[in-house]
């Protein structure tokens, strides 16, 4: 310690140096670090009359915890920057660290609106690795429960779509629909949302009386109820005018960006994994692949209407499954400790949002060496930035709702 060391001075509020950073009229740089990419440098440079508007991560209509930085000029959106990762739970890494039975429960909450499809893809991947022949009754049960959940998911989509446009009523009806289906599935699986029902080589349990009676009860009025729910919205002039011609995804753009599911079918491309790359017992079932927007590209209204068409087809599939359900076992005979041969397998299913696939690399142990998840919502979210240029702020959420992303799948 030197003799001339000054005693330490505590900063006081009168200290002018403290006020340097907090003066009126000076704002922090957004983002606080210098731009790291060309895109960031371009986006975070404000032009004449432009400003930033931060939306999220807590926002009632971002379909989860998504943060969107909007660059706006007046009421027009000039550019936008989605910030992801608020729901990153590390599912891929967790799956790589758990054995093949545990993967089903780890991947279940990935996309929580349609969780049976999240189980379906990894189960199919492991079945490919193990060369398992799944019993036909198990396949029929999978299709039956999956299509039920697709109806529930599309019902929720209808409610959310209206909610993001400012209509509160339809979501009350869509949740009635969803709760009935989900309670029936709860009678079968024991859970309302994260079913944990599919197994490698089959399903967890056979159909029971309560499930079948609930499904039969629901099926007796499913189409009538569907038509009634359609009547709530489709004739509404405000709803239609805010959807028509907005958020146009044409055929080329959809193909270039890798869009799948209802969004690409609404752009005029008849791509459905159930038909294009058939799996399970879908080749035996009769259903149409509805396509819309063939002339001129699909707007938000096309994407909305296409999902309603799909509900009708799903009800048709459910009807066939209930009538043609074969008898037999629901599980294949498998060793308790699964050690697939070394190799890699890709399996994809048609989830309510599009192509959901998993890619499993096995090294011969009971845990996968690599577990890769392809989620359709992630692809569809890329479109938002392209669709929103020169649209109004209020239409941002409408376009995003019509693409129907779920943040759990996007952030993994």
């Amino acid at each position, binding site marked *: 310690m030197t003799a001339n060391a000054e005693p330490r001075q505590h900063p006081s509020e009168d200290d002018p140096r403290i006020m340097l950073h907090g003066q009126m009229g000076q704002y922090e740089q957004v983002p606080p670090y210098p731009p790291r990419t060309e895109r960031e440098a371009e986006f975070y440079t404000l032009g004449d009359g432009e400003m930033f508007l931060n939306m999220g991560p*807590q926002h009632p209509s971002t379909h989860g915890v998504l943060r969107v930085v909007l660059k706006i000029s007046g009421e027009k959106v000039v550019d936008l920057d989605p910030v992801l*990762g*608020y729901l990153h*739970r590390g599912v891929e890494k967790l799956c790589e660290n758990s054995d093949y039975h545990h993967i089903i429960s780890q991947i279940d909450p990935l996309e929580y609106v349609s969780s049976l499809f999240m189980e379906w893809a990894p189960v199919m991947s492991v079945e490919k690795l193990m060369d398992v022949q799944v019993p036909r009754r198990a396949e029929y049960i999978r299709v039956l429960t999956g299509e039920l959940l697709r109806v529930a998911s599309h019902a929720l989509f209808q409610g959310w779509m209206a909610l993001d446009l400012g209509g509160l009523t339809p979501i009350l009806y869509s949740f009635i629909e969803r709760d009935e289906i989900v309670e029936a599935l709860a009678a079968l699986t024991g859970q309302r949302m994260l079913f944990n029902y599919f197994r490698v080589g089959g399903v967890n349990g056979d159909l029971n009386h309560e499930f079948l009676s609930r499904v039969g009860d629901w099926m007796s009025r499913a189409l009538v109820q569907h038509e009634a729910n359609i009547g709530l919205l489709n004739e509404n002039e405000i709803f239609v005018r805010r959807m028509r011609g907005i958020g146009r995804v044409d055929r080329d753009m959809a193909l270039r960006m890798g869009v799948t599911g209802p969004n690409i079918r609404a752009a005029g491309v008849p791509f459905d994994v159930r038909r294009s790359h058939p799996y399970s017992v879908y080749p035996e079932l009769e259903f149409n692949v509805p396509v819309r927007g063939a002339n001129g590209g699909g707007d938000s209204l096309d994407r909305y209407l296409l999902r309603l068409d799909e509900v009708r087809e799903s009800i048709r599939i459910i009807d066939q499954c209930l009538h043609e359900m074969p008898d037999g076992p629901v599980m294949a005979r498998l060793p308790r400790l699964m050690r697939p041969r070394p190799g890699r397998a890709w399996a994809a299913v048609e989830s309510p949002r599009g192509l959901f696939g998993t890619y499993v690399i096995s090294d011969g142990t009971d845990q996968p060496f690599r577990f890769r998840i392809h989620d359709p919502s992630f692809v569809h979210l890329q479109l938002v930035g392209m669709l929103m240029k020169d649209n109004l702020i209020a239409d941002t959420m409408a376009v995003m709702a019509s693409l129907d992303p779920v943040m759990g799948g996007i952030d993994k």
Partner: protein
Amino acid sequence: MAMTPDGSADAVGPAATSAAGNDAGLVAASPSGVSSPIIVPNTLWSSVNPGAYLSTAPAYTHLRELEGSDLMLSDTARWGQLDVIPTKADILIDLIRMNSLWPLLSGLACCAIEMMSAATSKNDMDRWGMFPFRASPRQADVLIVAGTLTTKMAGPLVRLWEQMPEPKWVVAMGDCTCSGGRYKRSYSTIEGIDRVMPVDVYVPGCPPRPEGLIYGMMKLGQLVKERRGHWDEHRIGPNVPQDV
């Protein structure tokens, strides 16, 4: 009515005995140290069975005069003898708070769907005054944390909680928010939100049924009534990531 004050009650009250020896303009001091009460004539309420209470009006007009006596234990001391309803505004306010818990609309993951299910037609939380999901933290009483809390979301969520006006309460919905649940082993989640904010009610389940959430909110109502909230006990926990 039996409870109407008569002449004798007016004569024996503390106000009558004060007068001499005190300066005018000051509040008169009574032997029991109780200042003169405000007497509201009881025109609103009368007992179904007047015989259940004493027929004569009492000599005392304030509950503090009765502290420590056996009379406090009977109904007559609490209600019948007085022409005032001896309560605190706090009790009334607590009842109001308990019966109109406004949650913040902040779903994080899976449990948010069940939270919406609890708010919509089938199980209608509005029946117990829990409905108006506010989009702004400034208007909300209860933060229902529904879904996995990741390290990236922890900072914004704590900021939301700090922006809520006091008094405020937190309900941890789902296993992920209670203890980490099935994502406890993950590198990017926070194992229970009680690491970052005080929690009043835990609703376990993955996800809990909507009825479970409603039951938890009713339990929270009891806590609110008994003033057992945790919001003022501790501030931000140790694990809040900085600069998120």
